[in-house]
């Protein structure tokens, strides 16, 4: 399995540099990840990129991993040199999801880690087999847990909680397995009609096609306008 398609579109095309989604792959180790930075954050773009980078380097996410991520983020800023508002916004924090997968060397299973509402989807042919963390589109209305750059705000994720946030999918007995990773606007759209929408995503070949699909679905009210990212591993 390898990354066969990857694309990301900003919420507003003219603001593409403000896209707060991040994604990455380390195909040689079967590791892939997406992260969706929350808008009301000091620098969620930097935070989401850092989370993906660290996951690709070490997919064993635990309290120590998260502590290191927070330290590396904080080290990039000089709080004392900031304006009063930048200090307050920095103290308030940055927030992001992280959904990553590790495909076992024998291609027999996929380990999924998911914090927040970025979606991982297992597909066989064009049939949706499983999804994590959500299975129904209305679940995207829930307020998701996010990884925070303020250590105290990660309390719910400490101890063994992080280890419990994920799934394990067997690929045995699947004839034509693919895994899709995507951020929430696309995830909610997909789960509303997976039968017709999984093939649309699997048939994408270029980022222009992705842009056209997302643009069309946003315009007809089927997809919420937000930074939108997709990775297809097959």
């Amino acid at each position: 399995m390898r990354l066969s398609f990857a694309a990301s579109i900003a919420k507003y095309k003219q603001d593409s540099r403000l896209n707060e989604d991040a994604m990455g792959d380390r195909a040689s180790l079967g590791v892939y990840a997406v992260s969706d930075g929350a808008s009301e954050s000091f620098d969620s773009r930097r935070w989401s990129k850092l989370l993906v980078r660290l996951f690709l380097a070490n997919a064993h996410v635990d309290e120590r991993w998260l502590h290191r991520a927070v330290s590396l983020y904080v080290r990039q800023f000089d709080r004392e040199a900031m304006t009063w508002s930048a200090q307050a916004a920095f103290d308030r924090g940055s927030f992001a999801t992280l959904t990553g997968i590790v495909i076992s060397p024998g291609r027999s299973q996929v380990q999924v880690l998911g914090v927040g509402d970025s979606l991982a989807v297992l597909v066989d042919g064009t049939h949706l087999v499983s999804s994590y963390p959500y299975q129904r589109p209305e679940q995207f209305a829930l307020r998701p847990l996010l990884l925070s750059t303020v250590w105290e705000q990660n309390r719910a994720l400490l101890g063994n909680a992080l280890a419990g946030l994920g799934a394990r999918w067997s690929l045995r007995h699947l004839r034509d397995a693919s895994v899709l990773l995507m951020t929430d606007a696309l995830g909610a759209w997909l789960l509303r009609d997976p039968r017709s929408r999984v093939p649309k995503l699997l048939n994408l070949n270029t980022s222009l096609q992705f842009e056209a699909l997302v643009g069309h679905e946003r315009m007809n009210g089927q997809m919420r306008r937000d930074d939108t990212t997709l990775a297809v591993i097959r």
Partner: protein
Amino acid sequence: MPYTADIARTNPTAFLFVVDQSASMDEKLESGQSKAEFVADVLNKTLYQLVIRCTRSEGVRNYFEVGVIGYGGKGVYSGFGGALASDYIHPLAAIEQNPLRVESRAKRVPDGAGGLVDQSVNFPVWFDPATNGGTPMCEALRKTAELMVHWCDAHPTSYPPTIIHVTDGQANDGDPEQIADSAKLISTNDGECLLFNLHIDTSGAQSIIFPASEAGLPDAYSRMLFRMSSNFPPHLVAMAKEKGYPATGESRFFGYKAGYEGIVDFFDIGTRASNLR
């Protein structure tokens, strides 16, 4: 569907605070602060929250424009001072850059290793309490309507402005109800202006927050303020419920004889914009 426009720098929304600064605002609340001092505190904290919610590492994003109107013995005037006094409504970045002063205070924060450490934090002040004279509420609401017509004309596709009016008494320059009704009809393509009325009181009497009907309101004045207030827009219903208020789509964004907690919640819920992504 109204009240669904995305809020962006190219499509900002506006908050306008209309604050009674008449002599009676000098009366003390249970906390020992006067009504004027407490409202000034809450307003400064609200402005602070609006700024930091829109501050990113590269600077302040102008998702909001914010205005303050004060009214009292000196008539109707911009509630901002200093560099902001020349106009009523300003983009958020201008507000961030021009507080009257920034007070430095020590705050105990976790040090990440289980202990606490002192950290210097800054508290900007834009609005000082003042109390003087009568209550020209009608003149203030006329000015409000004038500002909203200009703003909506300049921002036709924006989420409509939210007006938060704070008073402790009755107008002494006429009947404000028709003027309020006119203000509520001013609109952008995304809907009509929202007028939220907050009446504050030191009597300790039972407060009424977000009622769904006039029935149960104690007097003609409270019923008038109720009628002057907009219905809850849908996304704020959920936020009010989160804070424990049984709000519905029929509820009016109105508080009567509100005390400490009611005032804080009113400002907090009233300035939430869920379409800010």
